[in-house]
């Protein structure tokens, strides 16, 4: 098992991590290029950038939007996101990885704070998973991949928490680390290939509709024509 762990931590980690970085950069590049092309081809370009940026920034910490609907889910979502962004980057053990692998020096979380944030994220994650199953609207919007991805995010959190408390864990430290590293590597692969790509595409997803619907007067009619299958009309 220690060879497997060494492989998962070494070459396999490099493989998936590089894949994630390049894959996310690819998304950014393609989306930026697409936006550029759209703006370049349209004759009318009075895009209200200030308003769009303000709206996007507002959604980054959507406190204003909590009480519009399903407030518990939104609070859980915020708790979940705060945990899974802060802990993997700033956990003291990960800070060592950053400095060893890439020479990046980051401040570390205290163990207590990391525990609290992780437990918070795990609890919120399970709530969100349950919400997806039990809430009718969420269930109708979810496909098989959505359940899988939500669960996949939880595995490294739980295994990581248990690995940092080996004295009360049901598995050996090595087994926990293997699960932790392999599931994290899986996340690196899923990041650019599933909806998890919103880690970088989020601003674009807010931007694109704001821009596309302001383009050409009558663009909506063309869309309607295209949707009705009259492609000739759309291309004219």
């Amino acid at each position: 098992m220690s060879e497997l762990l060494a492989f998962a931590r070494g070459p396999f980690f490099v493989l998936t991590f590089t894949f994630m970085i390049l894959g996310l950069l690819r998304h950014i590049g393609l989306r930026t290029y697409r936006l550029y092309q759209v703006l370049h081809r349209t004759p009318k370009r009075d895009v209200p950038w200030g308003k769009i940026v303000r709206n996007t920034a507002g959604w980054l910490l959507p406190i204003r939007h909590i009480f519009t609907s399903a407030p518990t889910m939104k609070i859980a979502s915020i708790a979940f996101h705060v945990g899974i962004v802060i802990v993997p980057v700033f956990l003291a053990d990960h800070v060592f990885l950053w400095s060893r692998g890439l020479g990046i020096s980051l401040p570390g979380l205290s163990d207590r704070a990391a525990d609290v944030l992780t437990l918070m994220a795990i609890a919120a994650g399970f709530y969100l998973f349950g919400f997806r199953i039990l809430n009718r609207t969420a269930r109708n919007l979810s496909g098989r991949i959505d359940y899988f991805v939500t669960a996949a995010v939880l595995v490294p959190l739980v295994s990581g928490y248990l690995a940092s408390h080996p004295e009360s864990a049901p598995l050996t430290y090595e087994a926990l680390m293997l699960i932790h590293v392999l599931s994290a590597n899986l996340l690196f692969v899923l990041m650019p290939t599933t909806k998890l790509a919103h880690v970088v595409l989020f601003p674009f997803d807010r931007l694109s509709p704001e821009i596309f619907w302001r383009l050409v007067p009558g663009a909506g009619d063309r869309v309607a024509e295209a949707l009705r299958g009259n492609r000739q009309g759309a291309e004219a």
Partner: protein
Amino acid sequence: MKASRVRDLLFVLVLFGVVAAAIRLAEGLGATTGLTDEIPWGLWKVVNMVAGVAIATGGFVMAFAVHVLHIESLKPLLRPALLTAFLGYGSSCAALLFDIGLPHRFWHPIFYWNEHSFLFEVFWCVLLYFTVTALEVSPIALEGSKFKRVLGFLRKIGGPVMIVGITLSTLHHTSLGSLFLVSPTRLHPLWYTPWLPALFILSAVGAGMLMVVLLTLAAARVRRQPAPIAALSKAAGAAAIVLGLHLALRIADFANRGAAGMIFSGQWEANVLILELLALGVAPLAILAVPRLRRSTKALAAAGICAVAGVILYRVDVGILGYLRSGAATYRPSLAEIALTLGIPAAAALAFLWFVTRFKVFTFDRRAAAPRSVTSFEPMTRVWSDVFLDNTDRLSLIAVVVIPLALVLFVPGLGAAETPAAVQAPRGMDEARAVLLIDGDRDGRGVLFPHADHKERLGGEQSCAPCHHLDRPGDRYSSCHHCHAAMDGSRPIFDHRAHVASVAKREGFTGSLAGNRTCSVCHLGDSPKNGEDAKDCVSCHREDMRMEKEPPSRLATGYVHALHASCAGCHDAKAAESGRPHLGDCATCHPEE
């Protein structure tokens, strides 16, 4: 296979090559290749450069045939031949760029002349001939463009340029053969002969013409157009004559040197030579000697593949394999080396495909490429789908997959955790080790610890145990660094593997899997077999191991953490009772920081 799939495959090879090239530039030749002092010429020089220019001879041969000998029927092959020469020489130069020790000094031979070197002559001929091929190819690219005056100028100088090109090629193909004349004692006698220059140019000319035939056949197949079979069979016939001449010279050479007996000596080199002569000489000759086969595209392709593979093998024999015996060495090309060797021709092939789709190279080409498609809505899926160049999406995805894979394959040990250096024991500052310098990682930032003074003030022998809280078996007051063996992060203090072996020995278990019978000696419950249900250490080590209290786990914390906990914990406690409030401060032990 569809043309776009071929293109994707070539793109994958190019990406692998690009990563290999980047690693070579970053790490250097020694770290990236399998080259040694005994075998300093490897794939890049011999396959990409020496063999690469050999199969690119079509350019000057066809130019000679069409413009000097005025064989009009070969004209359909002139443009593909010139393009082949340009790309072949271009990829040779690219390969050489990565093969020379300091790539940024590739221009040195232009200014710093060493006229005694064969390579000096090869450098100049390749450089000049590459320029010539560029001048010969650019009129094709400029046809119908707005640069009419440039095109007119290029056409005007076309004749002299062509003559210069023919001369240069003849020169350097012979001098590439001469190059190997400098090592008469090292090159295997099967290949070493003073006739190498003549043999090199003949084999290159024959295989180079068949290379043009091959590429034309491939292009016709991809475009689903009839190949210009008359020109092809004429060129192949001429190539057969040249290859026949080459084969005859080889045999005459063996006879002349009295080396014919060696061919069937059974040495592996001799068998490789037989394979080489079959591929480069006998097989293409046998196919092309039959007039009916000369008019069949399949037979022409088979002859071409044989001859091109044969000439590459000939160059590998003379450049690499012929040196293994005298060098008493083996040459194992690294993955990165192979990747660049394949990546450069793949890039040339992509450039070839791009060139022939944009410009009129083949007689069956129609002039212009289809206009770029215009923007359109695609219902439901992607709003502005055709905004993209249609390939960007797919090719970038291929890159995202291939580049990490290449990185991991070409740099073994990338990301493997280096085992941190074991913590070093404290260093005595005097003979009696009364004062210790605690500096586990020897980074020069340590703590001076008056050990003898602590012992005396805290009550002699009685005071050892609180700090030295656990002994290794057979040891007395083990030093901290034995268990807290990593500066940061926990380390197991229990060596399971060593215990399995020694327990099996002590219990007298025998057989091939004696260790598998030891579990129940320490693990008393039925399940699970982990630290929880194992016996305490002292139940076996009662005699040889002193333990103040059972440690909370079998993981020892990091050295830094352990010593801070031990020293600072005590200092904090004593600060209040001794009336020295600053005893627990950092500066008490770390005065300079």
